[in-house]
């Protein structure tokens, strides 16, 4: 349905990109805006792998960190320009994704746990003092040469646009439909002629690429970071919760989730983190118990069609 796809592009993607491209001129806290964009990217990345294939990537941050370090190594050792280095970050994440494809053989909780272990393994690999010559080990990297938050911000907005575009494509194409069929019932889908393995691997690598690009841009933006920052489990968990809160396998769900939850986080999270944690935990529990399909399902239940 090309018309629906173009409508989604026009009414969701375009306003989102325009708003985030213009906001820095109006609003002073650029770091906050940047974090919003990064989480929008990550939440949509989780949406692609979890929403459309049902694999819960508990160690999603592994790709993010791999991207950040891919960027850092290119800049530190080869003095590549930042934009190319961000692309390398994406490639590194895809390679990591390829390395981890065997994990897709596991099902359900096993995949989630193995993915978490994989991300921790990558963290300890990168933070290893024995590799200090390459990754600077646990002492962190400093990339002042490429420091340019404005460019990094616009790069993030571009990647966000591409990511949302990818989700629009999945939502409106036979490929996305096939993925959802595989998620619902792999055996029936394969009998209907869907190549399950190929489908899953493509979605997996796509979401790895997205997280890798986001990681590269994050490294570009912050320019000084430690392994524990870019491999922090909070990235995976926040991204998953944001995506679920809005509703997965939709275009708007993760966007709504990020804006509401990350907004709340910034309102009360900095001053009283433990109260935020309490509210956040209660919200998550209430969500799973009463609205397992996310906030968007409130509207779909009433018969409104939410993309």
């Amino acid at each position: 349905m090309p018309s629906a796809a173009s409508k989604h592009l026009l009414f969701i993607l375009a306003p989102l990109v325009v708003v985030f491209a213009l906001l820095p001129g109006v609003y002073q806290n650029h770091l906050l805006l940047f974090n919003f964009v990064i989480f929008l990217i990550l939440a949509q990345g989780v949406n692609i792998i979890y929403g459309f294939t049902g694999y819960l990537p508990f160690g999603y941050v592994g790709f993010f960190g791999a991207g950040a370090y891919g960027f850092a190594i290119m800049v530190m050792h080869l003095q590549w320009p930042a934009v190319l280095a961000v692309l390398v970050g994406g490639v590194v994440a895809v390679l990591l994704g390829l390395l981890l494809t065997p994990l897709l053989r596991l099902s359900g909780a096993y995949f989630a746990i193995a993915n978490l272990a994989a991300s921790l393994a990558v963290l300890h690999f990168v933070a290893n003092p024995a590799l200090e010559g390459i990754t600077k080990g646990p002492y962190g990297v400093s990339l002042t040469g490429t420091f340019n938050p404005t460019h990094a911000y616009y790069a993030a907005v571009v990647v966000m646009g591409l990511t949302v575009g990818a989700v629009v494509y999945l939502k409106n194409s036979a490929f996305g439909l096939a993925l959802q069929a595989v998620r619902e019932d792999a055996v029936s889908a394969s009998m209907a002629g869907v190549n399950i393995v190929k489908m899953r691997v493509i979605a997996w690598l796509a979401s790895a690429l997205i997280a890798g690009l986001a990681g590269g841009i994050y490294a570009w933006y912050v320019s000084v970071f430690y392994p524990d920052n870019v491999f922090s489990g909070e990235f995976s968990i926040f991204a998953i919760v944001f995506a679920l809160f809005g509703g997965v396998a939709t275009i708007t769900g993760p966007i709504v989730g990020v804006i509401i939850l990350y907004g709340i986080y910034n309102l009360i999270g900095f001053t009283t983190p433990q109260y935020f944690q309490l509210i956040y935990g209660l919200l998550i529990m209430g969500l799973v118990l009463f609205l397992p399909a996310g906030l968007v399902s409130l509207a779909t239940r009433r018969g409104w069609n939410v993309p």
Partner: protein
Amino acid sequence: MIYALVAGVLFGLYFSLVGIGLNLVFGVMRIVNLAHGDMLMLGAFIALGVVGIAGVDPLFAVPLAFVVFVLAGLLLYWVLVPRLQGSANPEMLSIILFFGLSQVIEAVTTIFAGTSERSIQSRLLGSVFTTIKVKWFGSKAGRAGPIEIFGQSFPAPWVIAAVTSLIVIALVYLYLYHTRLGTLTRAVMSRRDEALATGIDVDRVSAAAFGIGLGIAAVAGVFAPFMFGSITPAFGADATVTSFAIVVLGSLGNPLGTALGGIVYGLCYMLVQTYLSSWADLLPYVLLIVILLLRPSGLLGRRVRVA
């Protein structure tokens, strides 16, 4: 070398205790209890409370923690699980639900207890034995010093924790294989639908398993301040990851496999600590991934891999 091996077995027994509750819950209900580590943490706080208020041996906290958490588990079960089981994908949603629960527990504990590290003087543990020796057998009150095994001395709390773990594991074995409720529990573990069809009250069995699982976690928590030095409210998350590694090593869904998994993990942990190399941190995670891929059912267990 002998020191590392014996310490490994001692720690391993304790780690089995840490993991076995998680495994019982997963085996019976197919629910991933991400709040497991937080139960441990709460158990540790009960021990702190017992020492702080009553000033007696923390061993008295063991039965208290067990009873309190069995009751709490039953309550929690009736509140959370029926709704969860009714949803489309209980296994996945349970991960997120219990993540929310763990956030709530951590936040509430932080609000009431603060974030500072707490520990208990290790000589308090086991002081009841010395008192009994003095009162009943009239022997001299000696200093509760380290205990010697194979000519190497180990801190007394390690030995006490290991012995308690052994007793608890034996009790779990007796429960599962020599009581009626235990037999029903195993029936539910192997085939939930068929157990339901043969007229087993699956809800009652699951509730019992859930309560016992949490109770054991709390008992393990009582020893946590001695085994890990000190505890904070944020300790739960790490404990959960460790428990997962242990449980998966043994086998997810087979509580007795966990005992083996715990000992393997304990030995690895201790050998790594002894022959400390910079690659050591990677070991548990790589081990976890390799085992999941090669023998996803764990060292002892049935097949779980799909596709």
